[in-house]
């Protein structure tokens, strides 16, 4: 069943579109099997900690489009992430030699009376004020729990404003409670861009799309060898570039968990082919990815050239470092596909990956291409991962798992999680730039940084001795999946509260 439907104002949430789950404890192999036989069921938890919400991820993809304003139709608290994105925006402007500029984000500041008397007027006023102040090429309205529950015709207001202002005013439906999978917010952002901004192709462009966050431009050099330019979506794109992204020769994913909807959308609506093998992490992964790219761009010989160069110039350096990782164990925590790619990479570097905690699991992507399954590749190439958890940033489960596994190294991808490795005295490495690990050079980058992390253990050990540890011993003595359906703590009602 096709999952892309831009006639609908709101994107279908990932749980319903892809069967995505948030909780799982078991082996990686079993997870792959169940995903393919469509037997995967999400499980609930009897205890939970703060998640992210899809509104944040929607803003993540919309907030750095160069010539837009964002109106968050929400109470003021939902705007708490404005400043964080602005900070990133400004730093990355400098990295791209762009002029200094604040992101232009507005809150409609929904208050109690608005939940009774309606907030549409407020929304219209705010959109108009944003237009007057910014004169953007488009305005995106992001929604919230409160605006969703009030249930007004935001889409209708957006249409009216589009006509009045003469620029696209587009709704991005991302009410916090809509989905427990915060990556649904990426889908929501891509959906509104596909629905309201992207135009049908007029010609074939000489460029490929790279759907990413605001990572370094590592693809430029590679793509150029094939005779193409690169366009990075959506942060730092202009509205005009987004309108044209249907004309691209291909779409590259840095992480299919991020861009499944955009890639499949451009492919299904406008015939832009996706690179449907897992992203280029690790030597073997890069070989495979380059061959797939060469095939799509019709130049397999260029791919072979780049592969030969990589194996000649870079792989020997990685081999040298690998010696130092022999016998070491590692644990991975990261978003879904990216985490799976890191498992692959670590094993290639010679680590024994004892376990992983990924934030959600998509049994399939919107393209429905089975070869995109990153975890399957990891399992097929290097065998099973025993302690594989799907855990949407539930740090209590993570701490519990780390407490018993005690790896030599933790590789993390996402803030707020590294703390726990350090508290337990385990060297923990967080790489912010997703593109840092791409390609042969990326594998070498990772190897060097890992070597560095393992070497600077003094700080971690000292901090560990003095760090606060809020979890009870009782909890650390239970199994990590204790509070999940199927875990031994699922029926707690009526049970006396344990002594602390």
């Amino acid at each position: 069943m096709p999952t892309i439907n831009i006639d609908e104002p709101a994107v279908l949430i990932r749980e319903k579109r892809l069967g995505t789950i948030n909780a799982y404890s078991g082996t990686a192999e079993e997870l792959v099997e169940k995903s393919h036989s469509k037997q995967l069921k999400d499980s609930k938890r009897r205890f939970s900690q703060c998640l992210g919400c899809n509104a944040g991820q929607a803003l993540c993809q919309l907030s750095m489009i160069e010539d837009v304003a964002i109106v968050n139709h929400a109470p003021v608290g939902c705007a708490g992430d404005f400043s964080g994105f602005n900070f990133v925006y400004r730093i990355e402007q400098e990295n791209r030699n762009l002029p200094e500029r604040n992101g232009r984000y507005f809150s409609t500041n929904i208050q109690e009376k608005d939940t009774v008397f309606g907030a549409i007027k407020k929304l219209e006023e705010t959109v108009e004020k944003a237009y007057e102040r910014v004169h953007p090429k488009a305005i995106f309205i992001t929604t919230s729990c409160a605006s969703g529950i009030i249930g007004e015709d935001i889409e209708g207001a957006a249409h009216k404003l589009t006509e009045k202002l003469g620029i696209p005013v587009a709704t991005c439906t991302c009410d916090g409670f809509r989905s427990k999978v915060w990556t649904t917010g990426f889908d929501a952002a891509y959906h509104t861009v596909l629905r309201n901004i992207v135009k049908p192709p007029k010609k074939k462009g000489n460029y490929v799309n790279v759907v990413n966050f605001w990572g370094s431009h590592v693809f430029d050099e590679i793509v150029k060898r094939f005779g193409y330019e690169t366009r990075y979506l959506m942060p730092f794109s202009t509205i005009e570039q987004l309108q044209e992204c249907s004309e691209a020769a291909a779409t590259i994913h840095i992480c299919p968990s991020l861009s499944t909807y955009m890639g499949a959308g451009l492919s299904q609506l406008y015939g832009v082919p996706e690179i449907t093998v897992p992203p280029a992490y690790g030597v073997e992964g890069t070989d495979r990815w380059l061959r797939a790219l060469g095939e799509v761009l019709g130049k397999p010989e260029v791919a072979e050239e780049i592969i030969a160069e990589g194996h000649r110039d870079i792989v020997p350096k990685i081999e040298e470092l690998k010696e130092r990782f022999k016998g070491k164990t590692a644990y991975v925590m990261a978003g879904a596909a990216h985490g799976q790619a890191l498992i692959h990479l670590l094993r290639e570097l010679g680590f024994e990956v004892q376990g992983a905690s990924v934030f959600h699991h998509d049994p399939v992507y919107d393209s429905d291409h089975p070869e995109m399954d990153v975890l399957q590749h990891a399992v097929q190439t290097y065998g099973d991962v025993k302690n594989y958890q799907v855990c949407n940033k539930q740090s209590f489960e993570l701490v519990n798992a780390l407490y018993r596994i005690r790896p030599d190294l933790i590789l993390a991808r996402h803030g707020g999680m590294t703390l726990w490795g350090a508290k337990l005295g385990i060297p923990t490495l967080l790489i912010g730039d997703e593109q840092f690990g791409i390609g042969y050079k990326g594998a070498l980058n990772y190897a060097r940084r890992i070597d560095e992390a393992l070497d600077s253990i003094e700080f971690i050990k000292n901090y560990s001795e003095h760090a606060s540890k809020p979890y009870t011993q009782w909890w650390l003595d239970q199994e990590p999946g204790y509070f999940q359906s199927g875990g031994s703590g699922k029926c707690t009602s009526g049970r006396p509260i344990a002594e602390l």
Partner: protein
Amino acid sequence: MSSTIEQPRFTCALGAYESVVAIKRGVPILHSGPGCGGKVGQLIAQGEGYAGGSTAPCTNAEEQDVVFGGEKKLRSVIENSFKVIDGDLYVVITGCTAAITGDDIGAIVGEFQEEDKPIVYLEAGGFKSNNYVAHERLINAIVDQYVDKFAEDKEVEKGLVNVFASVPYQDPFWNGNLEGLKRILEGIGLKVNILFGEESEGVKEWLTIPKAEFNILVGPWVGLNTVKHLKRLYGTPYIQFPYLPVGAVETSRFLRQVAEFAGLEPEQSEKYIKKEEGKYYAHIDKMASFMLEFRYGIPRRVYTVADASTSIGFSKFLLNELGIIPGTQNIVDDIPEKFQEAVKKEYEDISNLGRQRDIDVRFDPDAGRAQEVIEEDAKNYPDKRILLLGSAWEKGLASKLKADLLIVSVPVQYRLIMNCGYTGYEGGLRTIEDIYDRVLATYR
């Protein structure tokens, strides 16, 4: 109040959960949507603290909770919070979803309170107010549901005071500012319950709130409902000082007012004030030549985008003790209208010499607009080097105006704050160091 806010500088009522994080071994339990805790944290948090951030329990409302209510889930999360997280005080705080669906939080938390668990609830309700108002309500809720119940001794203790000042995390210097206030109040011989941060003894200290001889409120409005509540409940009188005391003039003024209210022996407090002023002015003496002679320009005019308490406190200090003249003051804390006159009055009386100063004071949380106003006004002063007191959002404005920016408000982002504070005598010196540090760092 304004319907549009560009660049918000405060958060919703749920933001009061950060005040729980600021109580030693306090555990917030959020009954809210999935992203709320994180969004609040992105604006005001300074790391996780003990049990904030990704450690904070949360019910993560989803569609079915919005339709059918989330009470069952809440009960389960509370019950298991006691098992999983080792805390001294647990506080359930609600977001928008629970406020709209009308879950009976009181009844559920009541079940645990009946078992004498250390748990409190606050129906904050996200959109119902902001984190300034909810902070007051939080303190009142803890007093009503925890302190009043578990405090064994409520006899008034001579010389013991409760201090209510900075809103933790919303004031990025909360910890340092509270420490600064505690230090000077102890200096004149009082015993101080500071309640939040590293100089507090946590819930043990909270349990002595009823014993205070009087309460001290620092600030023009936040906390007034708390001291009034405590007056009703325990008959505790209070004294209000309407802004953060920064530097020698204001700190001495503050201490003399408190000493008089407390009926302390003037000799005792004056001895401390003299000693501190002596040290303070010795440092000023050392650096006066720099201020008077530095030939490459130091700030002459200051614009503020901050909360009322910080704005007044710094403006008084900068005018009277550093000679930097206040320009437009943008008060962005959503201060209720009934308190705005008093703030204006503070600005009218800002000069220690009683000189009339016409300072434009704007009350509007729409800080995006404030930036436009500042940019416009600054055009009238092309010859003056400008100081901006604001947040990370002012970084761009500062470079446009070639102004020096001292970040004193959230979002902070371009500074790292641990125990830095600007209250008291030491806080004044620190302010001077920080301002001229930024000025001097601009020279090659």
